């Protein structure tokens, strides 16, 4: 048993050694706010950047972050064409609350539901909030865990840094 486990671990280390540096969003099924099944390979934005933000209705810093970005989103979109996917990990207790929660606050994000944390797990997210920035080629170029007021400025700088000039 022990030998088997060591072999398995070793196989993994080998795989690690032979890996090329890339950083794509894994294909996972989540739900849209309208109940439809949505595969993350459909997270596209015509060669412009994408932000994925993991949040939940009960997570204070997450709501703080999305509220702060909501005020800036229109400007960010004008300058960079960015599209934000706010992925709620609320489980069955709160998932029905997500749509009214978002609408009351007037958020304009693309909202996705990940009630059993499948996408969260696939992207190796620990505690939320957790934010990913994906460039026009679909590569993760930056990620950030946690939120302190002002963090949105760093995110915006990184966003400016990854705009593909050809598309612009």
């Amino acid at each position: 048993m022990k030998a088997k486990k060591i072999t398995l671990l070793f196989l993994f280390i080998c795989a690690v050694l032979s890996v090329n540096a890339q950083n794509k969003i894994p294909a996972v099924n989540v739900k849209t706010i309208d109940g439809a099944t949505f595969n993350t390979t459909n997270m596209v934005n015509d060669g412009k950047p994408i932000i994925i933000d993991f949040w939940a209705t009960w997570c204070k810093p997450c709501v703080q972050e999305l509220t702060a970005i909501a005020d800036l989103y229109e400007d960010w979109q004008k300058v960079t064409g960015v599209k934000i996917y706010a992925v709620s990990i609320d489980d069955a207790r709160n998932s029905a609350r997500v749509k009214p929660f978002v609408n009351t606050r007037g958020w304009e994000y693309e909202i996705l539901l990940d009630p059993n944390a499948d996408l969260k797990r696939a992207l190796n997210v620990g505690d939320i909030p957790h934010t990913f920035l994906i460039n026009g080629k679909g590569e993760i170029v930056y990620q950030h865990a946690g939120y302190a007021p002002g963090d949105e400025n760093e995110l915006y700088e990184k966003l400016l840094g990854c705009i593909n000039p050809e598309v612009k």
Partner: protein
Amino acid sequence: MKKVLAVILFCLSFPFLAKAQESNKFGAGEIHGNFQMMAQNYLVDSTIGAKEVSEKIRMNSFANLNYINGNFKAGMRYESYEKALLGFDPRYNGSDLTYRYATYTNDDLEFTIGNYYEQFGSGLIFRSYEERGLGIDNAMDGIRVKYKPTAGVYLKSVIGKQRFYFAKGEGIVRGLDAEFNLNEILSTFLPEFNPEKARYTYILGGSMVGKYQADNDPIRILPENVAAFAGRFNFISDKFNFYTEYAYKINDPSLTNGFIYKKGEALFVSANYSVKGFSLSASAKRVDNMDFRSDRNADVNNLTMSFLPAISKQHTYALPSFYPYATQPLGEIGEQFEVSYNFKKGTKLGGKYGTLVTINFSNANNLDTTQTGNEQGYSAAFFSKGKMLLYRDLNFEVVKKISPKLKTTYTYMYQVFNKDKVQNVSGFGTVFAHIAVFEMQYKINSKKTFRAELQSMRTKQDFGDWAVGLAEYTVSPHWFFAVIDQFNYGNAIAEKRAHYYSGSFGYTKNATRFIVGYGKQREGFLCVGGVCRLIPASYGLSLAISSTF
């Protein structure tokens, strides 16, 4: 040994293979993962009841590694509890590989061997999930197949055993789930119909789950196969959303229900209406003998198949979440209402920056039951409530931005908490509490922010009155500093009027965080996503590190 050597040689050739074939193929995949550790040193404090811990220092940690290459994914998790932090089940003891899987996806077919997590519908009869922070993990170990035969039809099937600490539960779990998105199905017959632009969406679903466990009971004749069924319906329009799910379970005598032979059932209904700036929502739930586990002798949070979260609002401040409610899976009937309105900028109540007001009410009673005096245990009227109140919560929240720099939040809550029944203790009775919270956040400049909370809880029962003060200073993007004091000033026993103070600071760089804390932690329930865990009082220094790569 030879085998191991062969594997090593084979592995060593990967990098070369990868280079030889450039893109694609085995070597071109990606590896990602995360790492988390939490260590605490334990000191003795008799006032708060922090007991001596013989190891002095304890640590929980784990790391996930995931390999992805095109349609192929594989991964593993290593967990270590040397020894488990206080509050975690002591059966988490030692270090081992606890999770490993491989998944292959080919167009509409996906299969997984090894460990996986899965949920059918809202989880009434099957949810396999993890809450690492609470020590909950009922991962499946077996096979899962997902298949989409045609547009709008989603099939899932699972078979395997559930995780039980470092081992597996005895029962074999088998399940099948089908979901039909009627709009997507219609689009295959009517090509001009675009499901994404439809005004109304209809989704139907059904699942069937069975468990097998041998009957080794010397006296009782127990069902070795227990089946459960669930059906769900979801109607969605731009402004309106309606969801309902009903579950039924055949007789399933178990440790938690006292080995009665009654059938089980659960009904969940939720509806909401929302437009920009306004929302109204309501939900109701009825649960009757629905504790469903893959081992009839399991208890607490072990080997659960049914997921029955409370429908009350999930509070996040310290005092409003002092008495967290958890669904009583053996019997409960409850409802919840919420209205939320965002007073627009420039109106009388909205002021210059708008005002967000939320009013929420929830209630849970026991079922109206009659003892039958036979193996059925009891019978329950479907639509009538029992006389015993389990939980009630009426709360108001106002979020008001005073200036671009200053934001305030006011919360008031009235709570009734049947401590004896919900926490399964005796002699405490029911707690009636009035709670108020004031929070302010002041932005000093674009990087520095000061935040403070003042909280008060008035109650004549249990521990009596509490007050909480919190101050937090953050410097984006790297630092935070916080101090908190929880003061039990109204405790009936004068010596127990203790201060539970603590301080912490943290450093964040991208997806890596370090947090150092020192202080006293009161005994209490820690809840994540509607599941709670009792944490004993502790005092000492703690260190947490987490990183995603």
